[in-house]
């Protein structure tokens, strides 16, 4: 693991400067954007970003996902090269640098832009052979991490809410319907402006992209709103912009919750599971926000999920 970071940094530098050892005046040379042990490692050198994908990433699946990004440059940030290279046993891809949403000003989040990009992604044709969107698999992984804790007082309601979900939402059976192109892991860290500052917003991170229920991509903001965390006006702006752009995940008018219920429950459960894992690791109680998400799981226990669009199994 320790050998990967310097190798990746050197690779990013080499992608920018053909001649090794060149002194450079690039902005943010060798900057580490993410270094998550069991997940991706991302470094930046000037206008180039190199990403080492999670250990065990499927090469064929990643190649297809990169092809989608290259074909939809108006929606997804296009890779500099659609073919990954291998470095220390990890698949590495290269991307142009884009400016992310400022984490210090979440109120300035580009909800309309995010919704518009998702609507266009969901309407785009998926190439043959593209794997399933990995949203349910990520939720299942969060539950495995929660179970690994053993007994924890907050775990029981989270596991009960999980057990009440249909099998497809727990990644235990294929999705029965609604096969659209989906991002699979939408949150505010998945948006960048490219070119920097003046460019339009684009979606990044294709690792979980695939075919599935497009409501999954709306489900994180939906879950935050349902848990009383995202203010109603921000949720309304996001949903209205998605409908305006003709997104297929929810009906164009009326109650969107029959379509959103199961994915929003799944993401609430996933968020609650990771919150419990995190608080346990830090040996601290759940904070107010984490408790709000666990409380939503408690309430789910008394209300069965909506059975929608043939997704009941």
């Amino acid at each position, binding site marked *: 693991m320790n050998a990967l970071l310097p190798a990746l940094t050197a690779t990013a530098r080499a992608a920018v400067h053909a001649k090794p050892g060149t002194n450079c005046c690039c902005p943010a040379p060798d900057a580490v954007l993410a270094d998550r042990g069991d997940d991706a490692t991302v470094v930046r050198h000037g206008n180039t970003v190199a990403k080492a994908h999670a250990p065990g990433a499927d090469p064929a699946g990643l190649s297809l996902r990169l092809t989608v990004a290259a074909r939809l440059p108006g929606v997804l940030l296009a890779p500099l090269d659609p073919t990954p290279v291998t470095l220390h046993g990890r698949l590495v891809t290269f991307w142009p640098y884009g400016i992310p949403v400022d*984490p210090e000003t979440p109120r300035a989040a580009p909800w309309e832009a995010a919704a518009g990009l998702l609507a266009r992604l969901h309407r785009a044709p998926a190439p043959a052979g593209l794997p399933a969107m990995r949203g349910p698999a990520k939720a299942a992984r969060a539950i495995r991490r929660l179970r690994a804790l053993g007994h924890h007082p907050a775990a029981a309601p989270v596991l009960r809410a999980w057990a009440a979900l249909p099998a497809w939402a727990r990644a235990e059976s294929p999705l029965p319907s609604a096969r659209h192109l989906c991002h699979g892991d939408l949150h505010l860290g998945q948006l960048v402006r490219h070119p920097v500052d003046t460019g339009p917003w684009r979606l990044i991170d294709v690792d979980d992209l695939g075919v599935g229920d497009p409501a999954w991509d709306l489900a994180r903001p939906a879950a935050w*709103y349902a*848990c009383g*965390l995202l*203010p109603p006006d921000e949720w309304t702006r996001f949903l209205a912009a998605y409908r305006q752009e003709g997104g297929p995940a929810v009906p164009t008018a009326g109650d*969107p919750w029959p379509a959103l219920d199961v994915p929003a429950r799944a993401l609430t459960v996933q968020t609650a599971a990771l919150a419990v894992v995190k608080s346990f690791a830090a040996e601290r109680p759940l*904070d107010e926000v984490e408790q709000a998400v666990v409380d*939503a799981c408690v*309430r789910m226990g008394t209300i069965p999920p909506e059975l929608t669009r043939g997704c009941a199994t």
Partner: protein
Amino acid sequence: MQCPKCHAPMHTYNRNGVQIEQCSGCRGIFLDYGELEALTRVEAQWAQPAPQAYPAAPAWGAPHGGHGHYDHHRHKSFGHMLFSS
């Protein structure tokens, strides 16, 4: 004018700007054409404003009305949640 029911004299009153006739005997009220609608309009203006409409939410959602955590929207924990898988 006499009450059509008990024939006692009717008196004219002004209620919220609307002229109505009330019987001094049986207290019955006589409304001219359009006066009921005028009273209904006035009543609607006096009614309390409707509670704020929230967008639809699931039954398992957080209760609305003072229980949201929007005041703590800058809460570090939620800020982190917005940006992470």
